[in-house]
């Protein structure tokens, strides 16, 4: 049994017949070939697969593609304003060495974007707690926190 | 994991014993049994469906009674296999008459889990064992009702 879904991913409308058991993350990676969203675990713990569904950070390994029918999805490939620009968080991660192997990075950035959306002025503590659903094995989180702080600062500048 | 407990039922050891030795009744009181087939006097082939919280799995395997002592007790050996891991146990069950119409049923044994059940189930195994044994005795009590 396949079900047709209509989704908008990074501003582009897609329509596909999918098996109900297809996870959203596999839809993005294998069907749309947006491989920036990663799979790091099978218990909804590591956060590497985080994307935005209707603007909210979502673990795409814990959502079925059929559940995303009618939703607006943003992945790491679509978070920057254009191909030639970076989102302030992307810039922050590069400026502050917030990544090493890069595998957790897309999920980190997508989660951090949710944090900043709800709290443009997070304290260090709020950033750390906000990232509790995302594992990084490389950076020790130190520079990730700095990257988010960089972005928060930058985004404030832009709005002012 | 160690599984130990004690339960008093309102029936004589003879009645309890008869109940435990009857395949059809046993099939009704062991939680989750969907099929119980007697192979010989002490061996049963069983199919169980366990549905508890996150886990819903079908088990296939054997139940075997050893050291059978009429109206006193036996050792129940269980081997149950499923797609998500296997369970095995050796549980000593003993009946002690308290009064004419009361029997203390004590059980003591070791339960082993393997595979995904062992990996994911460690925090819950104690609770699951408790829940299943509670269900077993509550079912038994229903059977014993006149």
């Amino acid at each position, binding site marked *: 049994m396949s079900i047709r879904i209509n989704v908008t991913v990074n501003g582009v409308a897609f329509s596909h017949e999918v098996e109900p058991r297809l996870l959203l993350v596999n839809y993005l990676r294998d069907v749309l070939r947006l491989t920036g969203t990663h799979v790091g*675990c099978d218990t909804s713990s590591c956060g590497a697969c985080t994307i935005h569904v209707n603007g909210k950070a979502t673990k795409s390994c814990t959502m079925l593609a059929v559940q995303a029918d009618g939703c607006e999805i943003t992945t790491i490939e679509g978070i920057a304003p254009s191909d030639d620009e970076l989102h302030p968080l992307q810039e922050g991660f*590069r400026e502050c060495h917030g990544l090493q192997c890069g595998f957790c990075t897309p999920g980190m950035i997508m989660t951090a974007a949710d944090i900043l959306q709800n709290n443009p002025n997070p304290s260090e503590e709020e950033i750390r707690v906000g990232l509790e659903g995302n*594992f*990084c094995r490389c950076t020790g989180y130190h520079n990730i926190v700095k990257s988010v702080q960089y972005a928060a600062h930058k985004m404030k500048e832009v709005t002012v | 994991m160690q599984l130990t407990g004690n339960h008093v039922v309102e029936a004589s050891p003879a009645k309890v014993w008869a109940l435990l030795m009857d395949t059809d009744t046993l099939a009704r009181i062991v939680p989750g049994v969907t099929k119980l087939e007697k192979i010989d006097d002490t061996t049963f082939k069983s199919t169980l469906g366990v549905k508890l919280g996150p886990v819903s799995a079908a088990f296939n395997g054997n139940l075997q009674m050893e050291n059978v002592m009429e109206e006193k007790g036996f050792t129940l050996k269980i081997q149950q296999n499923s797609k998500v891991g296997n369970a095995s146990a050796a549980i000593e069950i003993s009946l002690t008459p308290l009064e004419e119409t009361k029997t203390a049923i004590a059980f003591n044994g070791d339960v082993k889990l393997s595979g995904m059940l062992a*990996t994911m189930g460690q925090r819950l195994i104690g609770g699951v064992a408790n829940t299943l044994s509670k269900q077993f005795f509550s079912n038994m009590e229903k059977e014993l009702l006149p």
Partner: protein
Amino acid sequence: MSTTHGLIGKSVKRVEDRRFITGHGKYTDDIILPGQTYASFVRSPYAHAKILSVDTNAAASMPGVVAIFTGADVENVNGVPCGWQVNFKNGHHMKEPKHPLLVADKAKHVGDAIAIVIAESQAEAVDAAEAIVVEYEELPAIVDASKAVEDGAPQVHDSAPNNICFDWALGNPIEEVDAAIAASAHVTTLDFVNQRLVPNAIEPRAYNASYDQYNDKYTLYTSTQNPHLIRLLMCAFVLGIPEHRVRVVGPDVGGGFGSKIFHYTEEALLTWCTHKLRRPVKWTSTRSESFLLDAHGRDHITKADMGFDASGNITALRVKTYANLGAYLSTFASCVPSYLHGTLLQGLYTTPKINIDLVAVFTNTTAVDAYRGAGRPEATYLLERLLDLAAHEMNMDPAELRFKNFIPPFDGVTQPGYQTQVALQYDSGNYHGVLEKGLAMLGYEDFRKAQKEAANNGKLLGVGFSTYIEACGIAPSAVVGSLGARAGLYEVGHVRVQPSGKISVYTGAHSHGQGHETTFAQVVADKLGLPMEDVEIVHGDSEAVAFGMGTYGSRSLAVGGSAIIKSLEKVIEKGKKIAAHKFEANPEDVDFVEGRFVVKGTHHSAPFSDIALRAYVPHHYPAGLEPGLDFSSFYDPANFTYPFGCHIAVVEVDKETGKVQLTRFVAVDDVGNIINPMIVEGQIHGGVVQGVGQALFEGAEYDENGQLTNGSYMDYCMPRADDFPMIETASQVTPCPHNPLGVKGAGEAGCIGSTPAVVNAVIDALWSGGHKVKDIRMPLTSERVWRAMQQ
């Protein structure tokens, strides 16, 4: 950014980041090949079981199934090899039971592969694997290394009696050490477990193997730290395929931490399968499988005694360790508890007598191998726990005790290296310096005052020290060869100057987060006086890079970087000849200065790009001058490098619950010269958090039947952002005297130094509250700390 000079020592932003932050990294699982098939495994749910039957009939007819193979199909294929031979004390070779690609007769740990299913889709492969019925006879399992050697314990391999892989000793004769301990004024004894860790790189292992039958050519994409080594081991030792028929690519790799060094059975099996099927076969480990299959780390059971004279000088160290190797001998498993652990037991101290007695043991558990630090964290943990405990027992200050016992500073140039009692010769060191700096950063005296005050108010604060040393830059081939390594441990650096003067550098080191594409480019651009944009670093592809030994043991820059320097020197030498020809000068009169070839004492000079072009347009060349500017070098280091440092942890322990909060962490590391401080700091941060993970959160828990009971992120506690404060780092620089960059390596330092510092801090906090506790087993869960306080 076009800085051409002084790139060394600059925190240049990483050039590789753009693809990662935009989601365009290319990891193995991102690759789908034409005609792709997908694999799934049937794995043993038992730690030890005879395989009575495998019924694949139902599975074989399921939708999408392409093939199913079982142990019987690969019976004649070799197992995966071990790369390092260690001998028993009696000279016999260690036991090396076969590690088959699929087991046919007996499963030896949970997760041992019984069958592989290959199907048109991943879902179909998983569905079919579930339909395979395996009949087992469960056997008693053995988990604990110290019990495995007892008579009557379950036997993992028939060929290894008492489950012993090898026994081994190093250092001074045991009689001398026993006597020195017996004569000591104070002996500190510690019985402890250095628990087993699961590496947990966030990218699970993934492989994609394909075979082009028309060109007889294999390609294996693999999430590896060392593609050439995998090619060598797989081709020469497992499958018997000529190496030139196999291309191994390690594309972007999502972290390794050691666990992706090794040659795993799945790599060889998929390559074997693709040849059978003539279709690409891909397998990506699930996290649940990673927990059961990726080689674990540590797992030592140790008893150690450290003797002191009346004034606190160390007199001797005696160590007895059981090292758990798991069910099979992984690629470097044998050298980790021996040559990477025993040889580090001198630490930073002048200990005159040292002996380690080691037994390496098979058990029905996942294989154990190198994990960030590999042997050195175990040695450091042992020493640093003993030192802090001894200080408490002798009522001395732990910093003072260390100062008293440090090896005096030596630069390795004007002063010789330091010869230890356990085989190594340290290259250069200034151990007092890092502790002094650490104490200053901490504000030691103020902390002790605050600690006392806190204790009076019923609060438990503690400080813990760890002054560590490690052996990196692995390593001189002759030395490791004499110790049993079955490979050379040099590195390859190939510099290809393009006619336009742009540079392509091919390194045998592999980057999986370390930032080689940046650091190596800095080195090259600095040396040639070019903008970094003119340099590209190519790594990870056996077809592009002639050879390589890969990345582990903090060796990339010290060994791989040095190989590149060697080639750059050849480029410059050749460039001088070409410049000399252009200016009709003698090559000896040509200098290379700030990116230009200059004829001494004249105004004649040519930029690098001009000479590069001439190298490829060899008109009017004199006889004997070859065209081209393209050099490759093998660099084999003269010695290991020896980074060291001082880590200090401050913790608060909740009296009621035992919960530990890390409130400060100070790390002063001396990794020799630093090319990119930002990257070095990042390595330290990551290492520290991983090391603290061992101290406070992580540990594989097996039940007595060999079941890993915390094999998921719901139970295996990974360190998270909110568990940590900002980490305070500083560096001291004592250059390595024997490699051209003067670098020592920074990848593992954080993970080696931090663990004992945190445990020591918790113990210190407990002593401040009157709980004279010797040891708490790691990880220091709240309950364990609470129990320690109840005694």
